[in-house]
């Protein structure tokens, strides 16, 4: 465990070096909320409710979803890991007494922790400025549930991104796969629009897939919506995390055999 903590510490220190990048990243929720406000203000002009949400709930949804989206740092780590594999620099992880998956997760979670501290300040500021058009958490229990679901969502995304990076062993260039996957995840997880705007039968199907619980469900839970789905959500997410974990281990052991370690 100590070695993973050390990995996390090193990763956090590296984040401090990139202050400009982290600073710019922390204003992304501002931009998202500003753009969402402009859009939904117009769409709500003739309506009081869209997709089961009032204007205030919609704005809160976007703030929570953009905060969670910002926390996923593993998505950017795919580029680095794929490049290391492509250029033969991945060999260092194979000779170290540390699991590449553990290393990836430790680094990803440490980055998330740092971003959490920085972005929390931005979100808190936004919450104060926009208090008239935001709604507070429906209850402390729902807030805790949303945090737990959000954390599980981040672990799931880290595993998914690790698996995507592993594809670089087999395929030389994974840029296309990664971009396609990101676009799909953003839509399916509710980062672009709340999933409650989709037809009910699609939502029913989506409840068996993990993306539903990554951004959409924690934000809904925060608002006090769909609370009855919490236990099902926990089970579905836990199953998907175990499945992806197992798949990551198998794929790594299979693909490492075809790795030549010389780069191209």
């Amino acid at each position, binding site marked *: 465990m100590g070695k993973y903590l050390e990995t996390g510490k090193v990763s956090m220190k590296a984040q401090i070096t990139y202050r400009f990048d982290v600073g710019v990243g922390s204003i992304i929720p501002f931009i998202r909320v500003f753009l969402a406000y*402009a859009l939904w203000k117009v769409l709500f002009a003739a309506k009081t409710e869209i997709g089961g949400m009032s204007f205030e709930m919609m704005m809160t949804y976007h703030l929570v979803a953009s905060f969670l989206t910002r926390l996923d740092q593993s998505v950017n780590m795919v580029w680095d890991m794929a490049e290391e594999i492509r250029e033969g620099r991945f060999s260092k992880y194979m000779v170290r007494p540390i699991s590449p998956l553990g290393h990836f997760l430790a680094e990803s979670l440490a980055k998330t922790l740092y971003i959490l501290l920085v972005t929390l300040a931005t979100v808190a500021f936004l919450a104060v400025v926009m208090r008239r058009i935001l709604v507070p958490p429906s209850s402390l229990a729902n807030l805790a549930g949303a945090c737990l679901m959000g954390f599980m969502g981040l672990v799931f995304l880290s595993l998914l991104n690790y698996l995507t990076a592993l594809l670089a062993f087999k395929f030389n260039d994974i840029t296309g796969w990664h971009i396609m996957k990101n676009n799909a995840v953003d839509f399916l997880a509710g980062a672009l629009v709340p999933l409650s705007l989709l037809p009910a039968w699609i939502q029913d199907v989506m409840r068996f897939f993990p993306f539903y619980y990554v951004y959409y469900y924690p934000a809904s839970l925060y608002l006090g919506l769909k609370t009855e789905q919490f236990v099902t959500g926990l089970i579905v997410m836990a199953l998907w995390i175990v499945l992806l974990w197992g798949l990551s281990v198998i794929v790594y052991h299979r693909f490492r055999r075809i790795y030549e370690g010389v780069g191209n």
Partner: protein
Amino acid sequence: MKKLKRHVRLLKMFFSFRLSNRMIYRASFWTAVFVDVSLFLIQLAVFSVLFYDVDSINGWNKYQMVFFVGTFTIIDGLDMFLYFFGVIGIPAKIREGKLDIYLTKPVNTLFWLTFENMDIGSLFTCIPGIIMVVTASVMLGIRITLRRVLGYILLLLMMIALLYNLMLIIRCLAFFFIKTGALDELEGELIGFSFRVPGIVFRGVAKFVVYVLLPYALLATIPAQFFTDSLSGGMWLLVIGVAAAFTLLAQWVWRLGLKHYGSASS
């Protein structure tokens, strides 16, 4: 004139070199097509969900929206074809000192960097865009005149140039800062949003921000507004002014960045 001919010749060379390169790696060629088409489909899905039960937005009806999405798809396809992959590669070249080789060649560095990675596959993305634009025009019953078509093409070209300048300014910040990944993310947000939402929804300060300071909302809105409705003289002036200002700004930031460039130690 001689200089222009030389650059056209270079452009042809970049194109044929990239075409043969892409055809060697056919999987990559088709992957780019799939990526573009998937992006288009997702944006279309978001658009459909957003405007599912809304008849008009600030006076724009459904087919004007379709025209707007078609226009953005064409802009997106053309920018990916022409300069997108060249420009996004600039920060890595600055960081790793690979810019040296470009600076020592007897070719305009920025021209080379911009067009060296043209992506032929992205041109396919324009096809659904053109289909949407034509369908929307028919459904709106627009009388097609030469003036309207030429004005639309002119505005489309201006917006492609504006997008290029916006992209370049962001990439040039890599001359001054080690890591600029969050800026890419920020840009992705703004471009993604301007794809989904026409600029006409903005009012007051918000409009000033997305039309002048971060003019992403102009990109598809202005050509679509011109073709399907009308564009006032004031708006023409604003668009020309913003496009010219960002061209000058991009050139200035690029030159400033080059002065700051310290080879591999950047």
